[in-house]
């Protein structure tokens, strides 16, 4: 009996095979490309969307206002405070004579207010503000891009923390089972019956609300759903023959959990991954929408939605945010689906 006579993909490493399986899912693959382009370019938002110029040549010397703060006096102005490059006076100073300026493509960041707007705020899309301004005169395009970046980073962090804690507790419970499992299970039940939203409201009034506070608070509760599934997988797996074989081999508990049980218990983790990420984005957005989330200076999709609700006739607020949210969630789910298929070694 000889093995492998009929198979063609012999010397391909497991990781490479998973990548090939991922690529075979066209929708997921295209989604990954799109998402990567959007996300990576949003990481450079400071260069693309900024009210400060990238480079100023003033009297033969180079300045980098987007990275460093210069007082207005540096450019021959009157004030000791940081130069406001959107001010026509400052602009005149730095462009006069041989001086020149390189501006970012969009000359607003998420907090810059367009004082030159001809229309009252929220102003509709114009050549100055491509997607209009919000009710405080800030550029919606810039806020959307910064908000997208923050939401995605927030979701990644929250999901990663939730998965790590969830897997750890689930694995320990499932593998050692017995009394330890019983005690932890009761603790989880008590913990999960805490009113999450209520706690958030209380904490929002005690502490200065910030993105870090939100991550910590949501992480305290986010792991429980997953740990139940991982626990069940470990419980099922610990009595399987290959685990017993590993024990007979003299493997330590930690190695058995890590090499045998964990890879085979990843199904719930991977299945829920896209939904957890999009769920985290939605959590942040809804908290901001309710005004319980990040402070108003932080660029946030939820805050934009709330503004859209307040100014229902300003369609550019709600529509833009809506499209960004739907697009992000859809791309993430498609990628997650493809990932799930790619990590299933039983598929050829």
């Amino acid at each position, binding site marked *: *009996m*000889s*093995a*492998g*006579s009929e*198979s063609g993909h*012999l*010397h*391909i*490493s*497991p990781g490479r095979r998973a990548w090939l399986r991922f690529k075979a899912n066209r929708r997921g693959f295209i989604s990954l490309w799109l998402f990567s382009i959007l996300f990576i370019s949003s990481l450079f938002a400071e260069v693309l969307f900024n009210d400060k110029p990238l480079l100023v040549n003033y009297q033969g010397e180079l300045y980098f206002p987007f990275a460093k703060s210069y007082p207005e006096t540096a450019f021959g102005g009157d004030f000791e405070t940081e130069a406001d490059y959107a001010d026509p006076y400052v602009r005149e100073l730095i462009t006069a004579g041989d001086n020149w300026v390189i501006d970012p493509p969009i000359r607003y960041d998420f907090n810059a207010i367009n004082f030159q707007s001809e229309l009252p705020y929220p102003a509709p899309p114009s050549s100055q503000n491509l997607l209009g301004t919000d009710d405080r005169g800030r550029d919606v395009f810039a806020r959307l891009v910064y908000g997208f970046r923050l939401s995605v980073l927030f979701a990644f962090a929250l999901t990663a923390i939730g998965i790590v804690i969830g897997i750890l507790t689930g694995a320990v419970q499932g593998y050692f089972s017995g009394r330890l499992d019983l005690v932890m299970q009761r603790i989880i039940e008590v913990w999960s019956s805490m009113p999450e939203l209520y706690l958030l409201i209380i904490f929002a009034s005690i502490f200065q609300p910030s993105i870090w506070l939100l991550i910590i608070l949501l992480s305290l509760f986010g792991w429980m759903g997953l740990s139940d599934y991982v626990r069940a997988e470990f419980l099922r797996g610990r009595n*399987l*023959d*290959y685990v*017993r*074989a*590993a*024990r*007979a*081999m*003299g*493997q*330590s508990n930690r*190695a058995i959990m890590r*090499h*045998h049980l964990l*890879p*085979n218990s990843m199904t719930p983790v991977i299945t829920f991954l896209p939904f957890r990420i999009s769920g985290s984005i939605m959590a942040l957005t809804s908290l901001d929408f309710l005004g319980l989330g990040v402070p108003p200076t932080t660029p946030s999709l939820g805050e934009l939605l709330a503004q859209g609700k307040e100014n229902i006739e300003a369609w550019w607020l709600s529509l833009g945010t809506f499209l960004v949210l739907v697009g992000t969630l859809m791309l993430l789910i498609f990628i997650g689906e493809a990932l799930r298929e790619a990590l299933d*070694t*039983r598929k*050829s």
Partner: protein
Amino acid sequence: MAAKLIQVENLKVTFKTQVGDIEAVRGVSFDIHQSENVAIVGESGSGKSVTALSLLKLHDERRVDYPAGRIIYNNQDLMIASETEMRDLRGKDISMIFQEPMTSLNPLYPVGVQIQETLKLHRNMDSQAARDVAIKLLDRVGIKDPKHKIDSFPHMLSGGQRQRVMIAMALACDPVLLIADEPTTALDVTVQQQILELLKDLQAETGMSVLLITHDLHLVRRFADRVCVMHRGQIVEQASSKELFRNPQNKYTRYLLDSEPETRIAEIKPTDKIVVEAESIRVYFAIRKGFFKRKVGEVRAVDQIDIVLRQGETLGIVGESGSGKTTLGMALLRMVESSGRIRFHDHEISTYPERQMRPLRRFFQIVFQDPFSSLSPRMTVEQIVAEGLKLHFPDLSKTQRRQRIVKTLAEVGLDEDALWRYPHEFSGGQRQRIAVARTVILEPEVILLDEPTSALDVSVQKQVLSLLSDLQVSHKLSYLFISHDLRVVRAMSHRVIVMRDGKVVESGSVEQVFDHPQQQYTRQLAQASLHNEWLITN
């Protein structure tokens, strides 16, 4: 000869898959006469079950094509019958029983309700009448105290009883044909005999025909009137049972008949080194009840057993399911807690804590019954085989490790390209070879073989057994060989112990125990699986 009941002509079945069509059945023709027992015998993948399911068109329509063939029943071609017509037939004219009585019964309903369901559906009975008939049926299939048992749930019955319930359900509408798909495979040997006898009695009583699907050629010898041997989707030989066994025509049939394990074991001298010695091993499980988990009794899974195992020796452990043979093996390897003394060379391993035990683990290895669950599905073969090496021989370089893995794989009959593949890409026999490679690479002294061939086809069984014998000789291995299949144990073992309810009923050399059993229980076991066949052959 009686009239033809059902005619199958040139039946072809293909499965539609993503990689193309697979021809499972390639032109099969056979007849079943009235009151006849026909057996289709073949190994897994031969298309025997596919053929049987086709008679009732039980395949998933979206996945299966019937490119050719006719199935004539009652002047009607079932191939072109509508789904409604088929539904009338199923369970009424033609009924079926399956291999796994555990999963074919719904665990949430009492068995009586499930029997009554068929009666109500096909015979329009009301609940009371159906219940009375169900009780009669249970009585007829040999369930004691049927009035009481009718309200039992499936988990309260033993495997044999569940299979009897399945048969009762199948008989509910007096079918003219009963299709039995591996009806005894999941059962103990003595129970297997009883079930077959029951089928034969019922057949004589009602005059129905039985189509028996099985992989075990010897099982059908006394049961079937006619035997069809299937191989790769075709019937390679079809003859009356007597004719087939006396004078098999086809090469494959002869091969199947021949794949009985043969005795090929090396001599053991009483002076050979003792590897494992155990005295009065006990494994008791406490039965606890109530809120405070008070101990109310205990299950004596292993009760006062002594064992001596010499180098190069195979000790067979036989017994029916639940007799404690696996628990005994696990206790000897310190995989379950036990009391009593266990010595391995100079180590009193029964007193060793787990930490002290771990470095010794490599000397004790296990090969499990089910090669599908014993290999981690997310690891490549190389990772699986390398795991123990990394643990117990950490000094090996990467290339040295690779060399040893390739060498061991070659030893168990696998190519080098197996390294990068996952277990699911291999057949059952190949997987069992991987499992053997994983153990042998650690240079163990004792291997616990827990039903290593029970999940395999007969011909593959033989190959794996001869591999195990070869390895035993070349590596001077000692085997603890657990099996319910006495033929295999007889072929492999030097000495044997017979277990029942945790106790050793009889022990001694293979010849002593099997040819001159002293105990009634051993005689029963031997009769069920060994002597009948031998009496007929000789």
